[in-house]
Each structure stands twice: as C-alpha cells, then as structure tokens.
C-alpha cells in the first residue's frame, strides 16, 4: 500500500541520524506525509489514521504514549476542514499555509513536554516551522509521482496531481 509505505519512509526520515546540530531543523516528516494524504484522499486518510500513526511515532521515539497521536489527530482534523481550499492553492502558498497549520501541533507538543517535565527550554524548538515549507514542496513532488503511479482511487479524488 502506497500510503503505508510512504508513512514508513517518513518515519525512517524522522529517525535517521543527521549531522550534529542539524537535527533541530528536522521537519515533522510523518505529520507532513499524513497531511498530504489527508489533503489528497480525505476519504481514506483522516483523523483515525493520523492518530494511529502518531501512536507508532510515540513508540518509536520514546515519547509519552499518546503525545504525537494527539498532535497528529488535531492537525489532521484541521486539514480535513481546510482540504478543499488548500488543494486549489498554488504550491508556494500551500507550503506557507502548512507552516501555519503546524503551529497548533507544535504548541500541543510543547505543552505536553512541559507537563511531562522535560520542556525543550530553547527557542530552537520552533526551527522545524522554517523547514516545513521546503519539506512540503519536496513531499508534494515526490508523493504526487507516487499517487500517479497508482491507477485507481487516488486519481479520481485528486485528478490534478
């Protein structure tokens, strides 16, 4: 399944080691991939899929169980509300909107970390917001190809990719 495969690849990107000092810039790959599919095929990827993937990310990164699940579910919900408009945006505008869409997610994560007793304690926590827009453009190009490879289902819903 393409969607599952792309999510696994995103988790790989989320975990694979980056050179020292680069990892604070890492965009939330899994979330962005989820958002892409929510936008492209909202009838198949929605809040439930996002929540489940979040749970897996929690287990993979050693975070509190439910932390990413909550953040992903809320963001996917927002995406579901907005997907019709977002789809008609030009790519650059889409990418910038993603940055805004990530704000509630980042705030929820920050809050959970604070409550759990390990706040990041540094402004660099917000750096992924900067890398989100380029990451989104990259994802759209790559996943757009993937969606085109698949004959049915996705294309009917999202013919212009």
């Amino acid at each position, binding site marked *: 399944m393409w969607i599952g495969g792309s999510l*696994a690849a995103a988790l790989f990107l989320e975990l694979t*080691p980056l050179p020292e000092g680069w990892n604070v810039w890492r965009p939330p790959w899994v979330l962005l991939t989820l958002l892409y599919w929510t936008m492209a095929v909202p009838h198949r990827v929605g809040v439930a899929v996002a929540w489940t993937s979040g749970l897996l990310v929690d287990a993979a990164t*050693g975070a509190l*169980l439910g932390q990413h699940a*909550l953040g992903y*579910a809320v963001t996917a919900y927002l995406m579901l509300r907005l997907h019709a408009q977002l789809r008609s945006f030009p790519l650059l505008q889409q990418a910038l909107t993603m940055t805004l869409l990530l704000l509630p997610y980042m705030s929820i994560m920050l809050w959970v970390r604070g409550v759990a007793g390990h706040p990041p304690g540094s402004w660099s926590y917000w750096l992924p917001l900067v890398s989100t827009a380029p990451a989104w453009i990259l994802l759209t190009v790559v996943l757009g190809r993937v969606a085109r490879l698949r004959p049915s289902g996705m294309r009917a819903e999202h013919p212009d990719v």
Partner: protein
Amino acid sequence: MVVLSLVSLLLMTLDQRTSLVAPLRDGLALLVEPIQRLAGLPGSMAVRLREDWAGRERLLADNRRLRRTLRELRLRQQKLEALEAENARLRRLVGAAQRLAPQRVEIAELIAVDLDPYRQVVLIDRGSLQGVYEGQPVLDDAGVMGQVIEVAPDTALVILVSDPSHAVPVQIPRNGLRSVAAGTGRPDRLHLLYIPNSADVRVGDQVTTSGLGGRFPADYPVGVVTAVEHRPGEPFAEITARPLARLDRSREVLLLWWRSPQDQAPARSPVPGKADGDPAS
C-alpha cells in the same frame, strides 16, 4: 476527533504515572523496530566504511597498542583480585556489608537514531528478551552513561546522565563528600548539587557514584570537577563537572546486572529462601 483526543490524554496520563500501558507500548515498539534499525543503518554504515578503509599500517599499529594495553590491564587485574580478596576479608572483620561486584556485564550497541533533540536519550539493541530491566545502570569504558528507562522486547531506551531530568547520587572519593550529579541538557556538563559553600572541592576532583539510592553500584567514575564557584549569600556552591563517559560518541555500552544491597537483604537469610526456592531437588 474529540474521543481520540481524550483517549490520547488518558494514555499519556497512564503512561506518565503508571505502567498499565506497558504491554501496548511493547507491541508498538515491536512494530516500529524494523524501521528503527533501518534508520540506524546509515550511521553505523558510515563508521563501518571508515573501518574498512583504514590502512593496514593503522590496523597493525592499533593491534600493537591494544595488545600492550591488554597486558598492562591483565597485570593490574592480578593485583586487583588480591586487593579485592583482602578487602572482603577486612570488611568481614569489621562487620561491614560486602561491596558487590556486578554479576553479569554485557555489551550492547547503540542504534544510531535521533530520537528527540531536546532529551538526552539513546536507543540500544538489547531488550527484555535479553534480560534488560528498567533502572539498569549503563556504562561505557570510561564511566557511567545513564540508566535504562524503557524496555521493549528487543530494544531499550537509555537516559543519559546529562538529561536535565536525570540525577545520580555521587561522592568525591578524595574527602568522601556526598552530592547529587544532575544533568543540564548538555553532554559535556553536570551540576553537583547541595555542596555547601565552605566544602573542600577543587577543580580536577574525581566524582564517583556513591551507591546511595540503590540504582547504581558504588565507586564507578562519573565525572571530573571543572569549575567551582562560591556564591556569597547562597547556601550552596555552584559546581560543574564534565562526564567521563563519552556520552555523544560511544557506540558500544556496557549493561550491568547487579543487585543493590537493599534487594540483597532478604536473600541474606539463606535457609528459608533456599528451602522455598528449590523444593524439587
């Protein structure tokens, strides 16, 4: 959406305060383990490539050096064994509790993945199937690295001594002064807490585990004091130390199996325990 949010909140609370969701966590950890290992490959492959390309000359030199070190260590080991026996005898004489040597030591490898840039946590390739337990001390060849905080069937999470939420009970062997070494979030710095301004601590002092608290065995090196600042008007001095373990560079770590004196205490009256333990034989 609302339901799922509530479920996540519930899960987080349970995970933070209890161990009820541990089985769920184990299952999920098993599911994501292949991806974790895959994600660790680029890091370990880089190292392996470097090793493969190391010249013959360098390998030979390494070999010579290692053999020399081994000889020296063996020599010292002989001396140590004699000392240990003597120490045990003397402790028996004065009626002090025996210091325990670890019962088993095993090498685990780090899985080179970035987990959370704001926590000092690493993933190792041993888990509950290999007998790893929560709270287990983790060392490298130079000093204490941290302890296991979460065990999955095949992997485990280790929190490093430098994590801001981690603290080790320590002492300064030079004068027996006790303190707590708390992490600061930076891999090269620990804070020594609750040392009075008037205490005799100098830059360069060794800091070792004190064995209080029962998590870490006593007398393992933790760090070296790097700065002492007396603050007039404050009850405690500001003392920083550098961890001896190479927290950000070690690829292999040592897992220690040992029983703290507290756990040991009930086993000390051997007769009833033994009778209960193996009725078959």
